């Protein structure tokens, strides 16, 4: 009995000792904390993983919580980098300056949305205004756009997803009659972009949206051409080779946005080195592989 007790005691001490060692190692590392946009969490996680392979002396902690959380942690100094999927608003910058913080913006990637319909649908082109009417529930029949006389069925993503947020920002963004528009509640929320593609490919009356990279290889879906309200030509985010980066980079395709990393003033050397890595060729290759859109190539 006594023997067993001793073994337990010793192994217990051993475990505590091992935990202690582990902590010692962590303390000697430089920790970079990144918080913010949920759209950017996976991408930032990939950058961090690859970067930590090059710089084993640095440990990068990435958490999400939304762009709002990112702004909050930038203001109270709990994060070295805030991931924000839109530009800071005027009042947010004022608030930061009052607190003695100088937000510095670094563009790190782009994000875009493609609109998909079933190949049976005869409609090829819609404008941003049309999309607004469709997704806010004002127009509910395809014949209003010259299509078949049938109800429009809307497929979208969960309200926590980044594409949901971007779509709402670009398409439904403007206020109308003193109230901000929102998606009609009959829009079906799907769990991922692939199940969304599946749903639209099974539904001749469906329309859905998702990240541009996802649909480039699918023949059972039709990608719509999207027209800016003030322009004549409509553009598709894809061409025969996949994503049509130049159309997105020159701003002709409207449903895109930049993703930013914000820091307080000039970041220290370690953080700056990480940001340099992100915008380097390796960093932007990761962006491409993760089906986001890399930054415009400047030659």
């Amino acid at each position, binding site marked *: 009995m006594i023997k067993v007790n001793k073994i337990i005691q010793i192994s217990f001490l051993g475990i505590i000792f091992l935990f202690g060692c582990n902590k010692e190692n962590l303390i000697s590392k430089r920790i970079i904390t990144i918080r913010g946009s*949920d759209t950017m969490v996976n991408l930032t996680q990939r950058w961090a993983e690859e970067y930590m392979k090059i710089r084993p002396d640095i440990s990068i902690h990435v958490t*999400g*919580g*939304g762009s*709002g*959380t990112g702004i909050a942690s930038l203001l109270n100094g709990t994060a070295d980098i805030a991931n924000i999927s839109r530009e800071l608003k005027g009042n947010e910058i004022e608030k930061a300056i009052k607190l003695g913080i100088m937000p510095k913006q670094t563009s790190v990637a782009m994000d875009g949305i493609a609109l998909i319909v079933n190949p049976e649908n005869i409609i090829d082109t819609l404008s941003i205004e049309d999309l607004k009417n469709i997704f806010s529930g004002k127009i509910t029949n395809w014949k209003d756009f010259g299509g078949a006389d049938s*109800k429009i*069925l809307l497929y979208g993503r*969960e*309200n*926590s*997803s980044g594409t*949901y*947020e971007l779509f*709402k920002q670009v398409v439904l963004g403007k206020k109308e*009659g*003193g*109230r*901000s528009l*929102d*998606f009609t*509640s*009959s*829009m*079906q*929320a*799907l*769990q991922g972009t692939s*199940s969304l593609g*599946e*749903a639209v490919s*099974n*539904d001749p*009356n469906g329309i859905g949206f998702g990240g541009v990279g996802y649909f480039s290889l699918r023949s059972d879906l039709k990608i719509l051409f999207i027209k800016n309200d003030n322009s004549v030509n409509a553009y598709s985010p894809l061409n025969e080779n996949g994503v049509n980066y130049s159309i997105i980079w020159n701003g002709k395709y409207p449903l895109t946005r930049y993703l930013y990393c914000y820091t307080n003033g000039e970041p220290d050397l370690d953080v700056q080195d990480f940001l340099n890595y992100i915008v380097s060729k390796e960093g932007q290759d990761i962006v491409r592989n993760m089906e986001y859109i890399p930054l415009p190539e400047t030659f």
Partner: protein
Amino acid sequence: MRDKLIRFFFFTNGMAALILVLLIFGFLLYESSAGFSKIGLDRYLSEDFVSQDGTVVTEKAWQPTSDEPKYSILPLILGTFLTAFPATIISTLLGVCTGVYISEIASSRFREVLKPIIELFAGIPTVIIGFFMLVAGATFFQEIFGYVFRLNAFIASLGISLIIIPVIASLTEDALRSVSGDIRMAAYALGANKWQAIRNVLIPAAFSGISASIILGFGRAMGETMIVLMASGSAPEFTLDVFKSVKTMTATIAAELGEVSQESPHYYALFFIGIVLFLFSFVINLTAELILSKKRRNMDY
């Protein structure tokens, strides 16, 4: 000494379950408490918005991440009932009949085979059923019924029925088995045929057990998450139409809690949904338990 130890072991295990339930409820209350002050109970029902031209619009919508967040959980409660009620009705019809068949009509050898097979059904992972309804079931029934929304409350309730039918069938069978042999023999001695004995004697005698099985099945249907997440279409619409897409309370928590930013009103609202769901299933299980314990008392005579 050993006796005491064993007793202590079972006592702690028994209490652990009770304490865990209380802790979970306490945790839900604690996490959602901030939501009561930040959101307010009335906003969980509906909210009035004033447009620029002065008209007041009452919105019953679940749009927690909107620029004008709306936290009405009424569409979600409706969604839960729109999937759970049809599922319970379908499973009651099929489950009670199956239970009667196994208990009263099937030969004893066939019963030995049939009962385990039906109980095996309850063991199918719900994600498999959800996937099946999403990929195959939805299209198949769309061709029969011709409804507009491919994924809807009806499809989800069909999926749920698959897991409740075994629950109801098996509990119905148990209830019928527990009807004493004397009553059964008396019915046959009076010249009743099988149908008359089942309809006029056995089902009334086992009625409380059967109704408890239906109520428990309903509770299971309300708590079902994976099938509704995959097959109900997840549109939080305020509707009473079973052929429309709905979003249930369980699916909302499952889909949104993983991504919500902590300590936002949306986060507290999700915990509030958890409390509502907890209370619903508590009442349902309590009712079933009361019916069953009443039945047990009656049988003591």
